[in-house]
């Protein structure tokens, strides 16, 4: 419920910002570049907007989920089902959001004296472009569903496009900009984007229709077992069986596997910031990057504890296990991930020793505080995760909510760090995070007792929630 409110808040925020952009863009461009035509200039940047939109959709937008099997035996044409799903996706929030910028901008242009037929044609072309991005995203998502590392296709596509453009092998910014202006000037050319849209739709149609045959979902792929030697976990004593189970969980299920791959992203995350001068002066950003990059596995894995085990939760609850051991295994895994990412991130010292110190403080904070916070959140987890089956059309099973949960885990330490840094100094800010982290480690046993109690209290509710079929 709280999350829904937050989502609505975010949606409203974006709608307002887009509308503000739409109304304000003309003035901004006129002021910034008085000797250039603002309309031509705006079109030059459409390429970057397309890339941004594509990235955002990939991580946040999903095809409407639908259980298809029961429909297949009913007298409904397969094409109707596919058209319905695709049609529904066109009504997504992500397609309406750009309108809040496009329409006000068009109005402002017409008021400014641009020929209204030209601007109207441009406006419709942009709407078609939005829909093209919509369907293009689902094509990319369907490919990433096939690949082991689900973020690979989008990263490859986006970096190839940016590379082609940047090195001027294929100047996409100007091509797209000139293309849009050409369509605006001669409305018959609008047929070209329409044609592209139809091709994208048809391709999606083909992909989905192929998935709609009963045998493709009945015929389960039998995967060969990849067994690895996990005897090194013995040194962790009584929690070793759970650690082995967790490692197998991560390695043998697609969803958890791509989550583990995110650790790579965490290691390189700092490069986005530290390669830019202006961030090197913002010391509070060091803490944020440190928390996020060393905690990327912690946040992604931790927030679904104990839902990862929801498929066999009844078994665990009827066996002779101690909650404390079960949870400690997860804490140790998360701790290992934090340490590994921190060590691999040591080369960041190249950008300044302060970065390394801040990352160290962030890592200690992650180990001492965030591990416990996220487990505590897990005690209120009531959502089942189906590791075996993938809902038809549901390519990733993750959505915007997953990213929102990380906010308190990251923003709180960042705020504390930033505030202390500003009021007292860098050393004090680092010390604060380290002290909090060490306190968490020292009081680990006490904290665990308290968390275990929370888990025990919600035992029946969890069992009930995990045995519901969504």
């Amino acid at each position, binding site marked *: 419920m709280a999350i829904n409110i937050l989502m609505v808040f975010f949606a409203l925020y974006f709608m307002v910002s887009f509308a503000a952009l739409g109304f304000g863009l003309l003035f901004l461009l006129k002021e910034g570049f008085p000797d250039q035509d603002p309309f031509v200039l705006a079109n030059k940047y459409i390429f970057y907007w397309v890339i941004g939109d594509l990235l955002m959709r990939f991580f946040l937008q999903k095809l409407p989920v639908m259980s298809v099997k029961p429909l297949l035996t009913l007298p409904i044409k397969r094409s109707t089902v596919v058209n319905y799903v695709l049609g529904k996706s066109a009504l997504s929030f992500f397609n309406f959001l750009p309108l809040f910028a496009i329409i006000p901008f068009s109005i402002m242009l017409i008021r400014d004296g641009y020929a209204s037929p030209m601007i109207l044609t441009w406006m419709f072309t942009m709407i078609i472009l939005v829909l093209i991005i919509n369907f293009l995203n689902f094509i990319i998502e369907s490919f990433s569903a096939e690949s082991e590392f689900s973020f690979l296709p989008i990263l490859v596509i986006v970096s190839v496009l940016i590379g082609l453009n940047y090195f001027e092998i294929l100047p996409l910014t100007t091509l797209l900009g000139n293309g849009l202006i050409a369509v605006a000037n001669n409305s018959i050319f609008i047929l070209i984007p329409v044609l592209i849209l139809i091709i994208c739709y048809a391709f999606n149609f083909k992909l989905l229709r192929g998935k709609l045959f009963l045998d493709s979902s009945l015929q*389960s792929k*039998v*995967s*060969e*077992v990849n*067994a690895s030697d996990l005897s090194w976990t013995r040194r962790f004593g009584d929690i*070793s*069986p759970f650690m*082995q*189970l967790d490692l*197998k*969980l991560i390695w*043998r*299920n697609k969803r958890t596997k791509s989550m583990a791959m995110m650790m790579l992203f965490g290691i390189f995350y700092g490069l986005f910031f530290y390669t830019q001068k202006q961030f090197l002066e913002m010391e509070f950003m060091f803490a944020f990057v440190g928390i996020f990059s060393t905690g990327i596995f912690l946040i992604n894995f931790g927030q679904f504890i104990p839902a990862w085990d929801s*498929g*066999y*939760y*009844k*078994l665990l*609850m*009827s*066996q*002779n*296990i101690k909650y404390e051991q079960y949870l400690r295994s997860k804490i140790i895994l998360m701790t290992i991930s934090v340490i590994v990412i921190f060590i691999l991130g040591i080369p960041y010292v190249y950008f300044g020793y302060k970065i390394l110190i801040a990352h160290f403080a962030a890592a200690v904070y992650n180990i001492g505080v965030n591990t416990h916070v996220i487990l505590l959140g897990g005690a209120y987890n009531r959502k089942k995760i189906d*590791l*075996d089956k993938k809902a038809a059309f549901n390519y990733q099973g993750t959505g915007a909510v997953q990213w929102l949960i990380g906010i308190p885990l990251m923003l709180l330490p960042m705020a504390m760090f930033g505030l202390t840094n500003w009021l007292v100094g860098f050393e004090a800010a680092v010390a604060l995070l380290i002290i909090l982290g060490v306190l968490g480690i020292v009081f680990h046993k006490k904290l665990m007792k308290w968390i275990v109690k929370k888990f025990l209290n919600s035992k*029946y509710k969890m*069992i*009930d929630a995990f*045995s519901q079929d969504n």
Partner: protein
Amino acid sequence: MIYTKNLTKSFKGTTVLNIDELAIPKGQSFGLVGNNGAGKTTYFSLLLDLIKPTTGNITNHDVVVDESEDWKPFTSSFIDESFLIGYLTPEEYFYFIGELRGQNKADVDALLSNFEDFFNGEIIGRRKYLRDLSKGNQKKAGIVAALIGNPEVIILDEPFANLDPTTQIRLKQIIKDLAKQKGITVLVSSHDLMHVTEVCERIVVLEKGNVVKDLETNPATLKELEAHFGSSVLLAQEEE
């Protein structure tokens, strides 16, 4: 001894189980029969503390199951597929359960060697994950896993469903052998009256959450049960 006293369970105001008193002595093989919704799985879930009783409680070897966890070391169960871990191979699953129940690999292997016939070569050494096995084979793995660690109380919900005829016969033998061992209490539920009368010393019939019959198994029991369940069909026909 498993002792049930004043046990009721209600979901949203509807009482689905209501047992005043039920004592299952140690070592008995106990069968629970009844139509869908009679409360069999509800009773087993209460016995495993997976749901909370509305009133009353169950005592398993002097341990009140919803107050202490001390019944867990000597109790094991297979209720449904949610007792399996899909991404493990059967062997890994058996060893995992073994570790939870204080058995090392050799102990587990020794136990498994008794079930080669039952597995029929379809479980061990196939290098397949449990999630990729057929329903019947999954069930075989789950049932055998419930026998790991010398449990004194074994709870099996619908163990015969989904099994092929050969395996059903073998399973009956396994349950009979267990019952012969001193001190093992086996609780089985089933829709199949014939199987349950064959393997159980005592049969309790549940109807809409109430115990309506409590029979010591003898050659006439099957007839009696068939008459009982058949009569409700006759009654329904008469009402029409």
